[in-house]
């Protein structure tokens, strides 16, 4: 049996009267690629925020790599190897592209030597295809490049689990393929990946397992083809 790297149980989050998440469970095995899908506003991003410590869930627990991290602050989760990207890119605008990458290298990984950090940053920048843009300000990047920067910054944390929150929205088909190839490469290196994505083609190509959230509740969890055949998933997308 393969060990679980991430296990969320009964995660519940309310905003005033609005139930954003109702007892959502999710497990991610070591080295696994899971797709998290659901219609817009179904609570996927809220779930990611709870997993990564940006929001505190009202109920439920989160176990990461054998430790209960339900109450662990966000920065410590990042240090332990739980990295994420933001759906709307949030670069450090006062820094260069390379300096953006250097922040997690220094803080999440704990490198201290400027030389090591700089080298490691360049490796990552080349990996995500931003090698030529290292000295630019994020203000000079395109949307696509900003997504790559998000991804690069998450990778720089040397994660055990990468949560990619809609890194492909708005990209062209070839760019989507490019990002998918990158994610596959990372997965081959042993990183478990949770992919939140609307582009079904990408999810179907990438995920070994698919989890569907609708209106804050999990309605399906299983092999991609089986899940997509499931009556209630079809209903959630196409309606009754």
């Amino acid at each position: 049996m393969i060990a679980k790297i991430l296990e969320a149980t009964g995660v519940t989050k309310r905003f005033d009267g609005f139930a954003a998440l109702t007892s959502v469970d999710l497990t991610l095995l070591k080295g696994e690629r899971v797709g998290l899908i659901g219609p817009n506003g179904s609570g996927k991003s809220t779930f990611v925020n709870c997993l990564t410590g940006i929001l505190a869930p009202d109920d439920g627990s989160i176990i990461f790599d054998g430790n209960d991290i339900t109450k662990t602050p966000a920065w410590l989760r990042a240090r332990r190897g739980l990295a994420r990207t933001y759906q709307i890119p949030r670069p450090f605008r006062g820094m260069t592209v390379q300096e953006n990458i250097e922040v997690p290298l220094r803080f999440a990984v704990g490198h201290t030597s400027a030389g090591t950090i700089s080298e490691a940053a360049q490796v990552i920048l080349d990996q995500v295809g931003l090698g030529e843009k290292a000295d630019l300000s994020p203000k000079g990047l395109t949307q696509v490049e900003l997504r790559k920067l998000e991804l690069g910054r998450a990778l720089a944390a040397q994660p055990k689990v990468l949560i990619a929150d809609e890194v492909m929205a708005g990209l062209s088909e070839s760019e989507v393929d490019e990002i998918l190839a990158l994610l596959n490469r990372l997965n081959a290196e042993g990183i478990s990946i949770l992919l939140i994505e609307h582009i079904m083609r990408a999810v179907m190509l990438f995920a070994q397992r698919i989890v569907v959230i609708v209106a804050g509740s999990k309605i399906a969890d299983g092999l991609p083809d089986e899940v997509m055949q499931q009556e209630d998933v079809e209903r959630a997308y196409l309606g009754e």
Partner: protein
Amino acid sequence: MSKGLTLANSLAIEGLHAGYGEVRVLSGISIDVRGGETVVLLGTNGNGKSTLIKCIMGQVRPTAGRIEATIDGTTYDLIGKSTEDIVGIGISLVPEGRRLFPKLTVEENLLLGAFREFARVRISDSLAFCFDAFPRLKERRRQLAGSMSGGEQQMLAIARALMALPKILLVDEPSVGLAPILVSKTIETIANLKRQLGLTVLMAEQNFRQAIRIADRGYVLVHGQIVLSADDPQALQKNELVRRFYLGGG
């Protein structure tokens, strides 16, 4: 009321291009919504439905194209107009995610809906109508909008838009965050209100089967382009193409 007698409150969009910086979201969209029709924009997320709605409301400035609205016989060019002015003309939007004022009461939210000059004079009638149409809102009139459940908030969002006495009602993703049972209720509500008030409705919705229940016509958006335009939306039911777009098969 027969459709032929309704004063033409219609929308015409031609060759619309729009995007955010580098990312092109809409490439050459042309649609029209004729008086008294309910037209649905279908497609999964990220295909440009919301951007199209935002262009109509003046929240996103298109890079090219034409948007015209005809209301009570007068035709307005909407490009370059502020959102406030567009609401003033008689077009209201029920925005995606509801966008209520969470720390104001239900009633305060509704009263704010009638901000438009034309709506102010008939504010008490409108309020009575909304409370009649949504008894739940009447019960909770003193409650803060943010403390209500998702379904109640969606009702309030629709009611608030109606308080402006629009001629054309735009609805963006009414199903967002709602459980399936509430989705179908909400869609029915929109259809009923449309009939009662003689509105012209343009609705963006990814929940395909629910949306086409009330649609006179429909457009399917994929990657910022209209890939299907259906005069008989029921025909879309069996369309394999639609299934593929939605569920990613093949």
